[in-house]
């Protein structure tokens, strides 16, 4: 989400030169922790705040306020030469827990599957774990296979996927480049296989989609309020440019 936050900040500062906005990356966990510690005004997060984080905020005298500012779809990507076109959520879950280890088990070539993921401080990681690996079940205790390569950034995943025919990775739709192949995903074997796009994320047919949040410490006032209002209205045009999905009006 850092690219989106940067684009918004730059565009807003051009319109309002008297305002200074600085954006730093580091993952959803970092931003929320910083907001709880009072070192930032707005925390960008690609996941909801966990109950422990809300409790920690309240303990610090802060009531976090949540704003949904855009939507994102998680795309599952493979090397362009991979013959596999579509997978169900269950298959993806089995691949990432290490139950399925060879591409031919899902209709591909006889190749070992190399798993790529973001680091555990990424909101994308948490979202993928909860909604894809654990299939949204709260009582599941499935984990990523220990053989999963945890790449330090989206670029790390792209770099490996675009040149390794054995690789499978996932990332936000906005970070998928044209030299990677996107897999169509179905909720289960009887549902249709859907490719992620602006349309399919907004109408809910693509199964792996999530809201993107901004959290403030208490109700925002003044400059911060104006900035958020802008993001929720004119700022939405930037969302599409960056490959994310704007909110429905």
């Amino acid at each position: 989400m850092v690219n989106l936050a940067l684009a918004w900040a730059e565009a807003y500062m051009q319109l309002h030169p008297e305002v200074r906005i600085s954006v730093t990356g580091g993952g959803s966990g970092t931003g929320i922790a910083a907001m709880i510690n009072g070192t930032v005004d707005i925390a960008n997060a690609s996941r909801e705040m966990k109950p422990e984080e809300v409790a920690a905020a309240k303990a610090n005298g802060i009531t976090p306020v949540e704003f949904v500012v855009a939507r994102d779809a998680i795309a599952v990507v493979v090397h362009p030469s991979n013959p596999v076109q579509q997978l169900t959520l269950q298959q993806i879950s089995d691949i990432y827990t290490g139950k399925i280890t060879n591409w031919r088990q899902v209709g591909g070539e006889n190749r070992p599957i190399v798993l790529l993921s973001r680091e555990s401080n990424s909101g994308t990681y948490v979202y993928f774990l909860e909604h894809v690996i654990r299939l949204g079940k709260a009582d599941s205790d499935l984990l990523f296979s220990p053989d999963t390569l945890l790449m330090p950034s989206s670029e790390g995943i792209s770099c490996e996927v675009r040149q390794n025919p054995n690789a499978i990775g996932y990332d936000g739709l906005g970070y998928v480049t044209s030299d990677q192949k996107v897999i169509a995903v179905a909720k289960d074997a009887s549902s249709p296989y859907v490719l992620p796009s602006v349309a399919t994320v907004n109408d809910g047919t693509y199964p792996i989609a999530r809201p993107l949040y901004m959290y403030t410490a208490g109700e925002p006032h003044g400059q911060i309020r104006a900035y958020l209002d802008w993001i929720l209205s004119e700022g939405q045009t930037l969302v599409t440019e960056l490959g994310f999905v704007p909110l429905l009006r």
Partner: protein
Amino acid sequence: MHDTRRRWMEFAIEAVIQVLGISTIGIVLLIFAFLLREGLPVFFQVPLTNFLDVRWYPTFGMFGVLPLLLGSAFVTFTAIAIALPLGVATAVFVREVAPNWAREILKPLIEVLAGIPSVVLGFFGMTFIAPRVREILGAPTGLTAFTGALVLAYMSLPTIISVAEDALDAVPKSYRDAGLAIGATQWQTIWRVVVPAARSGIVTAVMLGMGRAIGETMAVMMVTGNAARMPLTLDSFFRPVRTMTATIAAEMGEVAKGSVHYRALFAIGILLFVVTFFINLTAARAIFTKRRRGGLR
């Protein structure tokens, strides 16, 4: 009058130097104390069996450091196995075999090698070396312990070469002359007389190179794949690993201060500090022993 002022000046300068010297040691001790303060409590919060477990999943309360420890050890020892023969051979070449004009060029060139930023090497490893490892060696992915070892070997080479070269330099000319005088060839003299004479210096070079390798963070984070698996079988050379340093760097940003995860990362820091300290201590003692004896063996 003049004399008193000079005495005060001397006193002042000595005092300043003493303070600076002691403060350097003091800073190191303070850093260690800080590590202990932040990291030790975790041993009371989490049972030891958890730490000796084989799964590192801190966000789910699993703090098994074995895969990380073994990952660091695996990559470091492989790197030294590659860098040791290469480094000693280069040092021998530069010191014993190369003509003077070549030596003038090679020595600064080797210093320049040491100056390449580790993140640049990591990027080179990720985009160039890793795909070659996958294609040529048939590994499922090029992001492996072996790739990490290659990059680390490159990074410890300048250290090993410089110190080994100094060690070879310290061997008196009389040794070489004696070897040639009894009819040994140049190569026999180098290999059987000079290098064994410089043995302790070469061991020091290796220890320092090891200390450099085990503490490297950025380069290994980009090329080893960061998968916390136990590197126990022979094919683990061509599988990803996760080092202690990469774990700290990747996870420190997200932890809440004071949480168990935070303290666990500091505990890993303590482990790293202790290991590096002992490696450097061994190297330093080797140097001091050598000097004290006034000789070379």
